[in-house]
């Protein structure tokens, strides 16, 4: 097995006119690991995610990947579905773009929708779906290619608490099926500790890693995990590092 799925090695990102936005950052993702990135707004978490996906190039350092094209998938903050396509066709899109025939892509899309509990909504358009359903379609679209690296950029930010929790459990359930490496950005420390096996805390810009914490606990997580002393202690520890990171001057 490869030692890492993707790795940021002394990576820096500098935007013209606004100076260093991120780095230097070292972050390696092991296969099957769930990593949460937390930190204050503008600390470069989403930039780190885009670097890992290959959607942005660093201005310094190196991004190493063992994934090939189509083996990484991204779920964005908004569902980002094409309004003119049905849920089925939205989910089939990555496969079709990768050269899979329409028929096979649609069949796999239906299976992916079934996995997120939306088999009956395959023909619906995004405008006919609720926020939670649209996000599930987005998740199905990311999973349809059976990625080795799944990147989630604050995917539940716009959802209510109950839907957030249901979707977090969905992600963990789906992760258990194929065990891709997952990196997700979140503002919620509790969500990070509940879902991840490792929480990486970013400090205020230029974004750097202020601390890392491993989360021990059963996988998949039972709902009762949120009430355990270990969970509370980890949330407390991450919050402390986060508070320190927010004090770091820009």
């Amino acid at each position, binding site marked *: 097995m490869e030692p890492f799925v993707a790795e940021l090695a002394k990576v820096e990102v500098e935007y013209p006119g606004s100076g260093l936005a991120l780095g230097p950052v070292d972050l390696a993702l092991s296969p099957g690991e769930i990593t949460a990135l937390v930190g204050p707004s503008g600390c470069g978490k989403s930039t780190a995610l885009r670097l890992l996906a290959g959607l942005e190039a660093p201005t310094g350092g190196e991004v190493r990947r063992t994934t090939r094209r189509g083996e990484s998938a991204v779920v964005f903050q908004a569902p980002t579905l094409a309004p003119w396509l049905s849920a089925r066709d939205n989910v089939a899109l990555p496969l079709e773009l990768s050269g899979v025939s329409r028929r096979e892509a649609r069949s796999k899309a239906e299976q992916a929708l079934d996995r997120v509990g939306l088999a009956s909504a395959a023909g619906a*358009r995004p405008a006919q779906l609720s926020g939670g359903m649209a996000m599930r379609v987005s998740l199905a679209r990311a999973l349809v290619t059976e990625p080795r690296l799944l990147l989630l950029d604050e995917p539940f930010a716009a959802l209510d608490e109950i839907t957030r929790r249901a979707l977090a459990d969905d992600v963990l359930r789906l992760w258990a099926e194929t065990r891709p490496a997952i990196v997700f950005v979140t503002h919620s420390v509790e969500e990070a500790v509940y879902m991840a096996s490792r929480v990486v805390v970013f400090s205020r810009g230029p974004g750097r890693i202020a601390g890392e914490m491993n989360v021990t606990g059963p996988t998949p997580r039972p709902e009762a995990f949120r009430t355990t002393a270990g969970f509370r202690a980890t949330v407390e520890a991450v919050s402390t590092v986060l508070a320190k990171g927010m004090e770091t001057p820009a």
Partner: protein
Amino acid sequence: MKRLADLLAPLILIIALLGAWEAACRVLEVPAYFLPTPSAVATSLWADAPTLLTSAYNTLAMALAALVLASLSAQALALLVALSPILERAIKPLAVVLQVTPVVAIAPLVVIWAGIDNPERAIIALAALVAFFPIFSGAITGLKAADPDLERLFDLYGAGRVKRLVRLRLPSAVPFLLEGHKVAAGLALIGAVVAEFVAGSGGAQGLAWRILEAGNRLQTARMFAALVVLGLMGALLYAGLARLERSGLRWWRGR
């Protein structure tokens, strides 16, 4: 109930205005060549209906032909521009110059090029010129209006330029194209009428010619009758295209 009120309110205002107009003309004994009464206009409308309808058809046919011409050329050019940024930089200034040049100023030249015997060709070309820009500009804006995260998704799966254009940018441009066509249809009609005025020939037998002809003979009621037909035709065309836009958007969004 609200729909009835929406329909009745303008109708009552129109009837009141026409009533005031009729009364004012009669009381003040305004000469008919200066301002005919609405009843005289209605009589003229009834008497000239066959001629006016034929002319309305001619004008509409020329405007629609111009719209088709503008639509095809504007969209084809926008597609080329979308595929090549250099082409965009080259074409855009020319398109802007074309847009800000008044059609009346170009008309005599186009009439010469089309040939004096073919005024309808000149009218279609001029109306197409007027209708071109809203479609071209809508298409360019629409082709760049794709959701940036969807663009990233296409990057992630290595979609090429043509696939991106066909699967993402063209469908994203649909609402902008519908709006562009709605605006362009109105402009094509205006363009056709203005061009017919400038061509100054009866060869095309459109509504503008009817207005010119009646004006030259001081038959003001006939002028008004032609104007009424033109106004109604414009309103119907706009309403039809607005409806088409709504259905198009409903189809695009799925509701």
